[in-house]
């Protein structure tokens, strides 16, 4: 058939199947249709530690850390309207809190990680509180500077081992622990955040993003909800920060590295803003990709940036939005 004789017909799947969970219970087909992509991600993540070799297992851990940070970034940017480049701060505060608890008080990692998550989140929230009045790029600049600020305070006052850091922290009992802690954290954070944004609290946060003045006129304190949102994001970020300190048994200034602020953004852009699961997919692609390109040395950054640039230019909606749309469509060629 010549090209002009046919056209592609696209049909959307019924909205009932997509939006009403109860309806899908009516048949196995609809249930599989809804559950398959979810089970693919969950199953894939749970099985992958069994299939990978030692090197790629470590990459999986690093990718998991990025994925959780990316979700935190996506949540704050797309649902609350706070563009937060403070991933490095969350990792740093969480990591230092866990490391210090372990080195000075001798607490075991399974206790320090949750404890450090809470302590780090509280500290981060208090530090960010005065900046919550800022919006858009101004908030981004402040959050970008705070990790640098923390680094220089640590160097100047020679705190916590200064530039050397503290080595010899307890590590997690065995590689299985290392991987399943991060995989389960990732899944819990993903589904908890997805739930949160559809609750009333999430609606209020989206309202703040759309129009903060109108939220005030509705008698709701925007400050309170922004604090809550930042705390939630910081909690997840500090948790993986603490995990990272125990993963390598070491804490130091590189916990405040810019990578933790920048890579989550790249992952979110690639995966699709506002999807949360897109941020995870982005991180799970970009981190291993960056490892695979290690052979190229400095050229790696160029390749990496080109991929990002291509996405921003040609697929600004991101992978997740694209595949979700395609998944919900039937396509066939039709004679004109």
């Amino acid at each position, binding site marked *: 058939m010549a090209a002009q004789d046919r056209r592609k017909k696209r049909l959307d799947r019924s909205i009932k199947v997509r939006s009403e969970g109860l309806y899908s219970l009516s048949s196995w087909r609809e249930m599989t249709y809804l559950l398959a992509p979810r089970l693919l991600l969950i199953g894939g993540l749970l099985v992958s530690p069994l299939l990978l070799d030692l090197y790629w297992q470590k990459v999986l851990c690093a990718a998991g850390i990025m994925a959780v940070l990316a979700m935190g970034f996506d949540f704050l940017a797309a649902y609350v309207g706070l563009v937060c480049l403070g991933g490095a701060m969350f990792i740093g505060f969480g990591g230092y809190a866990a490391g210090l608890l372990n080195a000075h008080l001798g607490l075991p990692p399974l206790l320090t990680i949750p404890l450090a998550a809470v302590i780090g989140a509280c500290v981060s929230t208090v530090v960010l509180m005065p900046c919550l009045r800022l919006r858009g790029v101004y908030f981004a600049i402040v959050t970008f500077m705070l990790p640098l600020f923390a680094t220089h305070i640590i160097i100047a006052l020679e705190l916590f081992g200064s530039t050397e850091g503290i080595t010899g922290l307890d590590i997690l009992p065995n590689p299985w622990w290392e991987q399943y802690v991060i995989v389960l954290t990732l899944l819990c954070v993903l589904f908890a955040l997805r739930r949160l944004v559809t609750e*009333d609290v999430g*609606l*209020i946060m*989206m*309202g703040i*993003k*759309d*129009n903060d*003045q*109108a*939220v*005030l*006129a*509705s*008698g*709701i*304190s*925007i400050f309170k909800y922004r604090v809550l949102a930042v705390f939630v994001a910081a909690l997840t970020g500090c948790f993986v920060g603490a995990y990272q300190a125990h993963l390598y048994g070491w804490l130091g200034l590189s916990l405040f590295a810019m990578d933790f602020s920048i890579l989550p953004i790249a992952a979110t852009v690639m995966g699709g803003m506002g999807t949360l699961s897109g941020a995870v997919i982005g991180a799970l692609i970009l981190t291993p990709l960056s490892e695979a390109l290690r052979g190229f040395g400095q050229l790696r950054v160029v390749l990496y940036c080109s991929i990002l640039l291509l996405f921003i230019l040609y697929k600004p909606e991101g992978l997740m939005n694209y595949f979700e749309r395609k998944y919900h469509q039937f396509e066939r060629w039709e004679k004109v």
Partner: protein
Amino acid sequence: MANDILLDVEALSKSFGGVQAVVGVAFTLSRGDVLGIIGPNGAGKTTLINLLTGFVKPDRGRVVYKGHDITGMAPNRIANLGIARTFQIIRPYHSLPAYKNLILPLNSPRIKKSPEGRLGDLDSVAIDILEEIGFERDARVPYKLAGSLPLGYQKKLELARCIALKPEIILCDEVFSGLSMAEITSMIPLLEKMIMEGMTLIMVEHRLRELFRVANRVLVMNFGCKIAEGHPQETMARDDVKAAYIGGGTRR
């Protein structure tokens, strides 16, 4: 009930840099009043609304609501006390469906703490309010994204968001502006119904004919000052009011 004073405004002033937006405006509002605030562009009407609702802090003067001084309070606290407002430039939550727009006021401390606040499913309460305000013609409309609705519906949504707060006073900032005649005529019965139910309203408006159908008192502003107040027709008949509206004013 005539002496039941809800709002007492004393010598309210605000200047932005060198511009005096509101100068010593004073008035009282009793329960059930419908006060129209009119005046030429730039007369300070919207600033007055912003001062009353806390979005702008006054330089001088006092706002007393039911005996409590609310001058300079945070906007969300004033809203929680029962003073709701609409915005001249409508501010819907674009990315939420229309009925979800009402979930926000329904989650405010004012509604949560009221006895009926905890009862029922908020979504259906929201749909009920939207039906009351005139979303009934097409059952799909409440589920559409607020940003995609026609202006008439968005203006009604602004009002609905106020009503959801169960306020004692609603300050309407130009609810008629930008609407077609048909849309205005569908809006007036809603306002009349609210007034019948005893709602106290302050309406900033340029559409005088429509305003006078509902307002029982007008306050005329010019260059930030109150120049007249009283019964609508009598006030409009005054020479200084005519001069302010038609312009000139120096001719005698």
